[in-house]
């Protein structure tokens, strides 16, 4: 059985995955997560009564708004991936679309690999054996890796 996105319609998979937003066809405001009920729904811009949306791929790269980690196992419905629990990092990332999106940080990276304003890229990794989730991966410039 192959893994599938944890929430259908929130992101694409494959070598260059993207988050999927909803663009209001009336005022062009973009939303993530996608507007429920897309292609129909309600635009949340107070000056817009638009009710139709189209799916739009969001930029794959953004800058870190802030970051942290979870050194204690979060309570349910979080499901730990390892026994014993292994901490993971989290980042809020500002996309060129003007939306800040939270995500876990890609496997193998922690708070030491991040700073406010740094560039990160979207990847898709396993949430568990069945489900996939989006994550933010620090962008390492060519040559930088060798220096570390």
């Amino acid at each position: 059985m192959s893994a599938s996105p944890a929430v259908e319609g929130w992101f694409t998979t494959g070598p260059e995955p993207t988050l999927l937003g909803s663009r209001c066809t009336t005022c062009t405001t973009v939303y993530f997560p996608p507007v429920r009920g897309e292609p129909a729904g309600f635009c949340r811009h107070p000056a817009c009564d638009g009710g139709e949306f189209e799916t739009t791929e969001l930029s794959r790269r953004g800058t870190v708004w802030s970051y942290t980690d979870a050194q204690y196992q979060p309570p349910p419905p979080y499901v730990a991936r390892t026994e014993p629990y292994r901490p993971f990092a989290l980042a809020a990332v500002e996309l060129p679309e003007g939306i800040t999106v939270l995500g876990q940080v890609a496997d193998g990276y922690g708070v030491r690999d991040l700073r406010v304003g740094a560039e990160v890229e979207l990847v898709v990794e396993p949430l568990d054996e069945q489900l996939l989730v989006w994550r933010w991966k620090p962008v390492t410039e060519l040559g930088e890796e060798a220096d570390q």
Partner: protein
Amino acid sequence: MSASHDIAVLGVGMHPWGKWGRPFTEYGVIAARAALDDAGIDWRDVDLVVGGETVRNGYAGYVAGATFAQALGWNGARVATSYAACATGAQALDTARARILAGLAEVALVVGADTTPKGFLAPNAGERWDDPDWLRFRLLGMTNPAYFALYARRRMDLYGATPEDFAQVKVKNARHGLANPNARYRKEVTVEDVLGSAVVSDPLHLLDICATSDGAAAVVVSSTEYARKIGLDRLVRVNAVSTVTPTFPNTVLDMPNISTDSRQGHRPERTFKESIAHAAYEEAGIGPVDVGLAEVYDLSTALELDWMEDLGLCERGQAESLLRAGETTLGGRIPVNPSGGLACFGEAVPAQALAQVCEVTWQLRGHATGRQVEDARVGITANQGLFGHGSAVVLST
């Protein structure tokens, strides 16, 4: 200061914060009786009861206003119940104020009380793939302290704040709360204690983050005419209650959201938290320079620093300078959290905004024994409830 929409605080009362394991109704009744006693008002003279809802205590909690009214003894008063997460108390107070100012109530009792579980606050059981509050745990493992940590980290990377600064907020608040009989934690804390406690979410340590507590707070309010009629002269007045929602686009990541609105190429004039304070100042007809003390929601130590700037007590990025100069401690220019704040109380959600009002009232009356801000004339409270609830109250004497 415009007086046309002021109401009077006749009495305030609290049940001490702690982990008592008793029903929330019991705390609420004790706080209510303390407030009535403080006001010198007979319960049978109260014609409006507003309860702050608690969502963790079954049906009695959902209908808290009626639950308290019945426990105090049905007296035929009008009833309302408010829920606005951490802003519940402010919304309940605002409901009482509206009926009083409309001439539809004379004396109102506003009560919030909670009995809380241990550990991280987590969503109710069940699978809800369309509930963002459930999804942030299921998909991301994003706890409340992790949000506080994001805000704290920004202060470090943008303004040069240090973990020692955050620890100093705890040290200050612990000292403020030492003599507060309603505080749960009354013990000196050192910077080393904070930095030596476990890191929960980098950069925040266990002692940077507030606990969840049981507790209750109650306020008795009336029209200013009624207060004068019963012979009160040096009134504490409620000048403003700000219960604003955000203005689109809300571009700062808010708990429990996974994302923000799109900023659409421009920065909004004010962030949501700035707009909460702005509305309170506008309504009261004052500015930050008039404020003598502030009770703010220090869910984390670093968040107190954010609130100082949101309230306009200093420029963005300057809160650490004020802290380091001792300006926010008792005896400083603008004491912040003279009660000891959430650092000494822990959070009892539906009671907390009312507890802030109780503290400012005691301060303005000069009754804050052991933690009194000298010559306090105007105080402001601030907090923010999940899902877009502002909460700020301006009181003066």
